[in-house]
């Protein structure tokens, strides 16, 4: 296939909204949305602050099958309030994961895929967003007793804040080049630690440390996909098929403590240093 022909056949995943992304990953005709926007289960907290709410509170929960097996997808809409999680959106994700775990205890092998396009806690709902994220963490670890939980970070928002910890709890992570995965937003780091430490306007710098390619090269994510629906779908399918990983990344405290012990933390860090330090950390 020529390059232009290949380009024509590619469908950008990044350009899709949350609902379309969920639909694109599920087997054709199996998409069924829960608490769909027409039910208008919205934020109880935004209107009183003069913030216009979205009918699905920025989270899409869809059940269906992936390669013929049951799955629930939670997709965060990055375009609404930067994908930040409030009470309702957070409860949708946590509740879906909780029910998936319950399914497994009843013998139904429901898996979960999280489409993470999020800045973390929605500050207009602060403590309810934070509490919901703690619920999400709990539910991921619970479900992971039975099934892998796959996270996809595609961009352009990326995955930050408390939801980056959720990403770290997933069994597997798929990223694109556009993706970023980090705990703190660049602006907050710059504010707290200064411009020298972190220049929030230096995009190549930010991607060199927290972008998809670097996270893949350092073993902090599992698959690096092109921005293409078919490719991402394939990666997700393969990972689900693999079942639970032999080594859960978030269970590797000893390994990471050992690696960090080898690091001279005095000089400022470079991307290459991290790649060397974490060499072979992820099988």
């Amino acid at each position, binding site marked *: 296939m020529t390059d232009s022909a290949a380009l024509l056949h590619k469908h950008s995943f990044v350009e899709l909204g949350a609902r379309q992304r969920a639909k694109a990953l599920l087997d054709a005709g199996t998409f069924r949305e829960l608490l769909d926007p027409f039910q208008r*289960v919205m*934020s109880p907290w935004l209107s009183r602050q003069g913030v216009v709410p979205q009918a699905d509170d920025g989270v899409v929960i869809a059940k269906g099958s992936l390669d013929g097996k049951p799955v629930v997808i939670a997709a965060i809409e990055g375009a609404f309030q930067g994908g930040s999680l409030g009470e309702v959106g957070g409860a949708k994700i946590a509740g879906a994961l909780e029910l998936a775990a319950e399914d497994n205890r009843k013998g139904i092998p429901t898996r979960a895929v999280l489409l993470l396009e999020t800045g973390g806690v929605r500050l207009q709902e602060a403590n309810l967003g934070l509490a919901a994220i703690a619920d999400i963490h*709990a539910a991921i670890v619970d479900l992971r007793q039975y099934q892998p939980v796959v996270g996809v970070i595609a961009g352009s928002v990326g995955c930050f804040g408390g939801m980056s*910890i959720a990403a770290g709890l997933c069994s597997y992570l798929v990223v694109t080049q556009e993706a970023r995965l980090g*705990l703190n937003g660049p602006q907050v780091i710059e504010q707290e630690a200064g411009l020298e430490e972190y220049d929030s306007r230096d995009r190549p710098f930010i991607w060199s440390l927290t972008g998809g390619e670097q996270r893949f090269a350092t073993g902090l994510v599992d698959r690096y996909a092109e921005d293409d629906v078919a490719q991402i779908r394939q990666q997700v399918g393969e990972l689900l098929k693999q079942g639970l990983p032999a080594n859960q990344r978030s*269970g590797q405290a000893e390994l990471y403590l050992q690696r960090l012990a080898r690091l001279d*933390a005095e000089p400022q860090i470079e991307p290459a240093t991290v790649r060397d330090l974490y060499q072979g950390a992820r099988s």
Partner: protein
Amino acid sequence: MSSYSLRGMNWFNALSTGAKTVVGLPASLNVADGFLGEQAVRFIAVVADPDNRFVRARNGEVGLLEGWGLAKAVDEVITADQDKPQKRALIAIVDVPSQAYGRREEALGIHQALAGAADSYARARLAGHPVIGLLVGKAMSGAFLAHGYQANRLIALRDPGVMVHAMGKASAARVTLRSVEELETLAASVPPMAYDIDSYASLGLLWETLSVDQIEHPTAADVSRVTECLTQAIGDVAEKGRDLSSRLGASNRAASSQVRQLLREQW
């Protein structure tokens, strides 16, 4: 006068008198194995380490070493008690101003280190260990998600210095393009945005709020009172189970229950 809080350390010392110090962990973690009455417990606190190898984590922040260190401290307990019918309780003494903010932290995957901590605490809870979070100071954001928020029960001391939130006031104001005053005005009518512990309590996430006489340097009576409450919390966990469902039910969190109900109906 230090620029960091000493409450976590002081409460750790007061509660863990006579307990056996656990070695082999980062200096920013105070960990000891002891008893509350008959109940075997491991006390865990994150404290300031002015000599931390990571310069951005010297004031009690939860950074790379703290995240993975917490995971290790908890994993040890899970492994040691694996085949025991009686599981040790974990008492997370929480006084954490924030996660660590820095280039090294992001580059080396601080999000993954904090996930390690949350993972271990959650697995401990699922394995039947009672996990109690005791809030004696700040419980902020990612730091709290890593150390305390996976507890079965949360107990807070009533004091202006005890604060749960997703982001400090100044940063939150900047990010939401408001002034600190505007934020405080909003917080007065939007309970989840407020910084005080009583507003937090109205969300239904706390099991108990306790008043003490001397929060910085607890008296014997203070310690006795808190110890009693911790013991009761451990007993409550034994009766009610291993998940976080006890955090649901407050009227300020009604939507969280409603969403779960609807998901179940539509599942």
